[in-house]
């Protein structure tokens, strides 16, 4: 009674305009508007503009005109674009597998009790915390054809006699950026999976041990299925980020050598901004969209299935 009396008295003090917010429909609109405006301004509008751009012949210094799907036809016939598509899938696929495997392994190690657990867990995050451009520059040094510390070490250990041109060879360059991406991405997997592991009651492992499950069986029948929802979400995030990666490749190779390491984002940038073919760059950017869309939809469906299991 006291509560209702109070709120009635308070609402009397409010101005008529504010009292309208007592109606849930008005309140919902008031609360949703800022988000809708922000999303519209910074996501929907640029996206829409991007679509228009990709359908035009705009280039730097030329507003251009509507040309339909011409840009898409053009990039379809572009061998660099095809390499880019392949690169992106290869880059995303290989790194995701390694990041998941190493991250899970690390998470399981970190889930044990040992001295200095908190500090180690914090340090693990370092590659993830350092701005990508900075850490990638450090890696660039390590892979530098002349000053490579990796070459130096291999040479001193007697494994090689001549320099390895890490970033000059197409395959080695790809491998190099894959290694760096794994290095950068493992902490995110490890920490997130660790959080997931910590939600699994130790009693379940004890019950399984008493039920006769050896360590590997406990992992396979208890830990892995219970960790699955978290794993799927982490993989989803990682795939989206890796698929659209830009900084790492841009800093390490700039898409080279001879366009061998381009991803969607770097090639779109090079063509759109570097060469000034804005509309073609936009078309390449947009070409990423259907692929990502399919990946995300499949994963979301799978996550829903696992979670309602």
């Amino acid at each position, binding site marked *: 009674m006291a509560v209702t009396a109070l709120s009635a008295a308070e609402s009397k003090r409010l101005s008529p305009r504010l009292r309208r917010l007592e109606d849930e429909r008005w309140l919902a609109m008031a609360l949703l508007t800022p988000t809708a405006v922000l999303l519209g301004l910074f996501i929907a509008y640029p996206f829409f503009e991007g679509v228009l751009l990709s359908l035009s012949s705009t280039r730097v210094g030329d507003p251009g005109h509507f040309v339909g799907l011409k840009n898409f036809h053009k990039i379809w016939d572009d061998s660099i674009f095809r390499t880019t598509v392949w690169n992106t899938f290869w880059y995303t696929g290989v790194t995701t597998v390694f990041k998941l495997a190493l991250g899970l392994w690390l998470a399981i190690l970190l889930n044990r009790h040992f001295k200095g657990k908190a500090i180690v867990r914090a340090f693990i995050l370092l590659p993830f915390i350092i701005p990508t451009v900075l850490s990638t520059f450090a890696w660039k040094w390590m892979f530098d054809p002349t000053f490579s510390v990796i070459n130096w070490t291999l040479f001193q250990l007697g494994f090689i006699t001549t320099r390895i041109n890490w970033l000059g060879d197409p395959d080695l360059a790809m491998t190099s950026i894959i290694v760096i991406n794994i290095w950068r991405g493992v902490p995110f997997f490890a920490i997130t999976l660790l959080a997931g592991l910590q939600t699994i*009651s130790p009693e379940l492992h*004890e*019950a399984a041990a008493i039920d*006769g*499950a050896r360590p590997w*069986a406990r992992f396979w029948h208890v830990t892995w299925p219970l960790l699955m929802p978290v794993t799927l979400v982490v993989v989803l995030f990682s795939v989206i980020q890796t698929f659209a990666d830009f900084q790492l490749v841009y800093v390490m190779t700039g898409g080279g050598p001879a366009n061998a390491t381009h991803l969607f984002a770097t090639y779109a940038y090079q063509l759109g901004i570097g060469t000034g073919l804005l509309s073609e760059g936009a078309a390449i950017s947009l070409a990423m969209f259907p692929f990502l869309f399919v990946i995300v939809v499949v994963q979301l469906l799978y996550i829903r299935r696992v979670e309602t299991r």
Partner: protein
Amino acid sequence: MAEVSIRKLNKMFDVTHVVKDVDLEIRDKEFVVLVGPSGCGKTTTLRMVAGLEAISSGQILIDDSVVNEVPPMDRDIAMVFQNYALYPHMSVAGNMAFGLKMRKFAKPEIETRIKRAAAILGIENLLERKPRQLSGGQRQRVALGRAIVRDPKVFLFDEPLSNLDAKLRVQMRVELKKLHERLGTTAIYVTHDQVEAMTLGDRVVVMKDGWVQQVGDPLELYNTPANRFVAGFIGSPAMNFIEATLGENNGTVIAEAPGLRLTLPGSLAARARTRAGRAVTLGIRPEDVHIATDRDSPEFCFDATVEVVEQLGSEILLDTRVGPATVVASVEPTMRIRSNDRLRLSLKPERLHLFDAETEAAI
């Protein structure tokens, strides 16, 4: 067929000594309850029997073979956990089948066993459900089922009823008792609830601070507690304790406390005679205190002031003040008594307990 022997068992966690020289022989088909307040080492003892906790020193034997280094899966035990520990991603049937699958039982055998256990526990219609679709009581049954299907040598129960509401707990207690009578598997049961211990245990082990205080059947613990702790822990409402001094008068032994002067009965007097002039603790259970009548010998009567009247329906508990001490008496529910009433109470002399004031051991 399984006997469990625990010999000079100790457990240290870093510098904390939580289980101290526990000795216990558990016979085949016996239901033994470990009871004590939290931190008394009962759960740790159970976990050492399960193999979930390493043994610091001492031995555990199952059927005459030392299992100290044997991993849990090879001890042929089943455990029911406090939080049930059901695998959330498996159905009820899956939960029950898991232990059998791990032990490579044939599929038809697994199905037969699950059906039989489900029938015993009345959960046949839940087999396809997931644990989160079950109520607390149903989960408890599934946890029991998972233990039963294994047909192990020993059942271990770690406070299995403590997460259930009071009514369900009483019901499950009865069912557990029936289940044990039916299966006859050796069982070790940990609880902090003395009522559970008394009702379930063939024998009860009372523990405190890592030490075993007393081992005995429930009535033994109730009638002849080994020390003040056991006396106070077993029985509800708890035993009354009154600090007193012993004296001798014309060959009889007298216990004296402010507002109280009791003549000790024969056997007790004989044991207490050498302690004349020493401090002791008198113990008397509320059910052994009553309102004095003409038939009561004045040697066992004393005056009391009623402080609180607790009407329980089947009985009335009177919290009374006797000198500085509080004495609780259980009286007939028909009595009309109000607080601040002055009463004359009497006690059953043969039910009087005496404890050394220092060592707290029974005299």
